[in-house]
Structures are given as C-alpha cells and as structure tokens.
C-alpha cells in the first residue's frame, strides 16, 4: 500500500532510488545533496534496500563507478550538486556514448566562486549539450517520482537522465509525500535489460577508438534516441498516472486556455509564479503559466503549439548564460523562430545564487511585461539599485578601494 509521509526533497529522492530498485549507488557527498546518499547508505547498510553502495573519492569516480555498474547490467544511481556535477562532466559524456541509462539527481546549487550552497540552475544547465535527459522537479513528490519516470524512459532509449531539484527550497523542505507501493512501481518499471551483456567468456572491447568513418553514425543514433525519448516521456508519464496515480507530462500548463500573457518557469519557484498568475487573474490580467518539466529532450512541438498566438511570453530563468540570455528563454526563442503567430519572448533573469523568487517578484515581472514594448534578451530582476531592465550601457569596472590606496 502507498504510504503518506512527511519528508524532505532529499529523502524523497532516496525513496525514488529505492522504489526504482537501483542496484548500485555510487556517490560522493556534497551539500545540499548529502542527505540523499546518506539515507541511501543507511538503507543499503540496513539491508532494507538490496543494493551495493560504492564509496568513492570524487564525483568523477562516482559516475565512473556508475558507468561500470550500468555496463555490467545493474541499474545505477547517483546524486550530486553544483561543483560535483561539474567534476563529473567527463564521465557524463561517457555514460551517453556508452548508452548507459544511469539516473542521477542534481540538487541545483550556484557555482563557486563565491562559494554558495544556495540554489540556481546554472550547474545542471551547464550540462545541456552532454546528451543526458533532464527533468526539473517542482515538489518533494516529483523529486521522488521523476526518478522512476526517468528510469522508465532511459532504459528504453539507453540514454542517461538527470532530475533537477532546487537546493533547500526542495532539498531541505519537508512536505507530504506519497511513497508508492513497491509492487505498483515494479509493475511500472520492469527489470533493467542491458543493451550489451558484459560476458567474460566473450570478451569485447567497449568504448574503443572509432575513426572518422564511423563516429558520426554512432552520434546520429544518440540524437535519434533522444528524439524518441520525447514521445516516450509522454507515454510513460501517462502510464505513471494509470499505475501510480499521478500523470506527468513534459510540459504543464495553468490557466492557459485564454491566456494572453504566458509566464514560463521551471523548478520550485514555479509554485510562486502559479500563485502570482492566480493573483493576476484576480486583477483581470489574462495570465497563464507554462511550466517546463522536460528540458532535454526539449518539447519543441508542445511549446510551439502552446505559445502560438499569445500576446507576450515572459520567461523566468533562474540561470544565465553570460553573453546571451537566460537559457530557458534562449531555448524557447529558438523553438519559436519562424513559427506563424510566434509571440515575442521577454527573458527575465531571477533568483541567482538563492535570491528569493517570491510571488511579488512574479507580480513585478507581470507589471513590467505588460508595459514593456521591445522584447529583451535578458532583463534582470532584483539586482540591487537597479530597476527591472536590460544591462546598463555605461558600466565600468571598479577596482577595490584598497588597490587605489596602494597605488
């Protein structure tokens, strides 16, 4: 029977890995993710979770161990955050090229320096082009469920996937969580059948040298399978509802039907944008919310059909690609380019380094987007001393005062 417990996002992720019957977990602790693997180590040590927990000396090795385990046919899981995900980067590529359906949870944390344990999504979005599927959780429930959903699809296309969860706002917040019935999860997620068996009796070379006559085809197949995953996410999300009681979709809308102004958000701050959209409606503004759950594969068709014909689209990005814009805004603009009835896309950058993104913040953005005429690539919200707006034109580098004294 399913159980209702009050748990943090981190513990929910650990339950997600346990319900998925991950067989090998290899991880290195890093705040704010540590509670995930702490609980998993307890669950494996106590025997409640029949899995092998491999301790390693770095995130790079953690992913390498997952690569080995997955190659050998085990369902492998890890969790990391921020700098840890960055250190994993090389092995993330390996998991893709070796077509290993590993799942990891990344608790999004701003990158150092300056050292920060607070949330923004630049860590996970820096891995955009590696070839991992990516889902962004909004609630503690999703922190658990998306792991199960991700394995289901990953093991059909033989590509790895990561679930993003925002630091502290989800990772350390306790909320009611439905822990699914294990038999139901087993019915949803069958045993992992690896693409290739590692058989000592039939030694083969894996991941060897591929000359320029052949590499392109292998990569083509990765692209092809990532594309397939888009439809599979829809089907598996539907089936999740049938078997486990809640349907998931790559995109989620709120009050969209007649919305003229669509606010786009991803991750935990979406809860506040949703509340703000309701408040806008109460003020008579035809506002709606589009939440992006799947970032890779990017649901291009859904975004095109949902956004076509709207008056304005405001994208809230808790990340920034310096020199361009917010990353979600950039992706949505490129999806809409050349489409009939494509709306103008206003990119808003918010909440960097854990700055609180509040209902009022979304309301301020609403006020701005209603009156702003030109869509801007990047509009910064909440930088001290500056109104919402694009970059200043007249900024100059200001050395530290003591340096001038020394001179």
């Amino acid at each position, binding site marked *: 029977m399913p159980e209702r417990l*009050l748990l943090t996002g981190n513990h929910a992720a650990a339950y997600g890995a346990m319900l998925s019957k991950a067989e090998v977990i290899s991880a290195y602790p890093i705040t*704010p993710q540590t509670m995930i693997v702490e609980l998993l180590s307890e669950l494996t040590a106590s025997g409640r979770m029949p899995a092998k927990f491999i301790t390693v000396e770095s995130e790079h090795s953690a992913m390498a161990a997952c690569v080995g385990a997955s190659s050998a046919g085990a369902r492998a899981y890890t969790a990391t955050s921020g700098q840890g995900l960055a250190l994993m980067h090389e092995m993330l590529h390996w998991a893709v090229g070796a077509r290993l359906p590993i799942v990891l949870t990344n608790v999004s944390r701003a990158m150092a320096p300056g050292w920060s*344990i*607070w949330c923004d999504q630049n860590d996970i979005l820096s891995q955009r082009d590696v070839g991992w599927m990516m889902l962004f959780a909004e609630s503690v429930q999703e922190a658990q469920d998306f792991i199960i959903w991700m394995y289901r699809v990953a093991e059909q296309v033989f590509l790895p996937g990561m679930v993003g969860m925002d630091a*502290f*706002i*989800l990772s*350390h*917040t*306790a*909320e*009611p969580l439905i822990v699914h019935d294990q038999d139901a999860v087993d019915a949803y997620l069958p045993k992992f059948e690896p693409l290739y068996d590692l058989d000592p009796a039939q030694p083969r070379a894996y991941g060897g040298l591929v000359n320029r006559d052949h590499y392109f085809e292998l990569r083509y197949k990765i692209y092809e399978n990532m594309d397939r995953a888009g439809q599979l996410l829809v089907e598996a999300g539907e089936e999740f509802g049938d078997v486990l009681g809640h349907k998931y979709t790559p995109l989620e809308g709120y009050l969209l039907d007649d919305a003229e102004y669509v606010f786009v958000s991803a991750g*935990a*701050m979406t*809860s*506040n944008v*949703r*509340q703000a959209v*309701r408040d806008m409606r109460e003020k008579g503004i035809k506002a709606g919310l589009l939440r992006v759950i799947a970032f890779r594969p990017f649901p291009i068709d859904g975004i095109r059909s949902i956004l076509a014909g709207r008056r304005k689209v405001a994208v809230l990005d808790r990340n920034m690609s310096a020199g361009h814009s917010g990353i979600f805004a950039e992706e949505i603009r490129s999806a809409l380019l050349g489409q009939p009835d494509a709306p103008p896309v206003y990119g808003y950058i918010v909440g960097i380094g854990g700055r*609180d*993104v*509040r*209902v009022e913040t979304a309301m301020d953005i609403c006020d701005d987007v209603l009156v702003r005429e030109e869509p801007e690539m990047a509009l910064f919200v909440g930088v001290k001393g500056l109104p919402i707006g694009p970059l200043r034109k007249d900024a100059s580098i200001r050395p530290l005062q003591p340096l001038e004294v020394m001179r």
Partner: protein
Amino acid sequence: MIELRIHGRGGQGAVVASKTLAQAAFQAGRYVQSYPDYGVERRGAPVVAFARIAEPGDDLFVRQDIREPHHLLILDSTLLDSANPLAGLRNGGWVVVNTSDPPDSLGIVPRFRVATVDASEIARRHQLGTAAQPVVNTAILGAFVRATSIVSLDDLLTAIDHEVPVKVEENRMAATEAFEQTQLEVTV
C-alpha cells in the same frame, strides 16, 4: 495558509520543533511545509525554522521565505533583545516565549498576543538535554498548541511519537505539562 517562524539557539531543537508541528498538522489532514533557515548551524548560535500549515480551501502552496509570519515561537527569551524576532509578525499574532516571567513583563507591544511557559524548567525536570542546555522544543510546542489551538494536543503528542528520536515519553510529558502551565495574556 498559516505561516510560523521559530527562533531558537543551536541545540534547543528549533528545527525538530518545526518538523514536529508540521507533522501534527499533517496527521490532522492538512497540507504542510517545514524547513530550516539554511545557514551554518552550531550550538548556541541563533537558529530560525519555519512552517506552513494549510487552512481549509488552500489549494496552492508557495515556496518562498516567510517574511510575515502569523505566529512566533521563541525558545530563548534573550533572543527578544538580540535577534529582533518580532519583525514582520502579523497583528494579533501569538508570541510564545520560553521564560519563567509572566506575559505582561516582556514589554511586547500590545498588537501581539503573548504566551509564556518555563519550558527550560520543564525540560530539565524531564531530563531533556542537559541542565545547562535543556532541549525545550516539545515543551514550547505544548504552549503553542495551548495558545493557538491550530492543532490539538493529541495530534502534537502523536507527532512527538513520530518525530522525536529519543526519550519519547519524557517529551510527551513535557509537552503536556507545558500545555497545562502556559500563561496566556490577551493584550489587544
């Protein structure tokens, strides 16, 4: 949606208090959130924890800092002088303070309601924590329940069973005693 803020010092159990209160409301069928203020935690340093409890009809929950709480729990009365705990408290909100002094002696402005209980003494009596560093969280929750009635004492005691890792019976007795000994003062 009811928003609560708990002020304490590292070691007093403020984070567990938040979780226990949320658990009590959760058992009563309400949607809840509980989270600590994510800072560096160490014994004796000021600590803040938060909780949200749904009211009938609430269907959306937000995920942002609680800046204007409905009620406060203050686990160490010295924080009244140093930590400005009343900031943002809504009018008519309860300030539940761990002190042996009566409510009207704390000098809290009349737009708030004050409840006091000597939670430290109760905790010491039940050997919760050490004599110098009593763990007062379950006792102050008893006082909070008495003052606000947001959850019932029974729900609180069941939540203590669920959330408190050691000395469950002593904690239940501390909460019950505090519930009974709380001094309330309506100063509106």
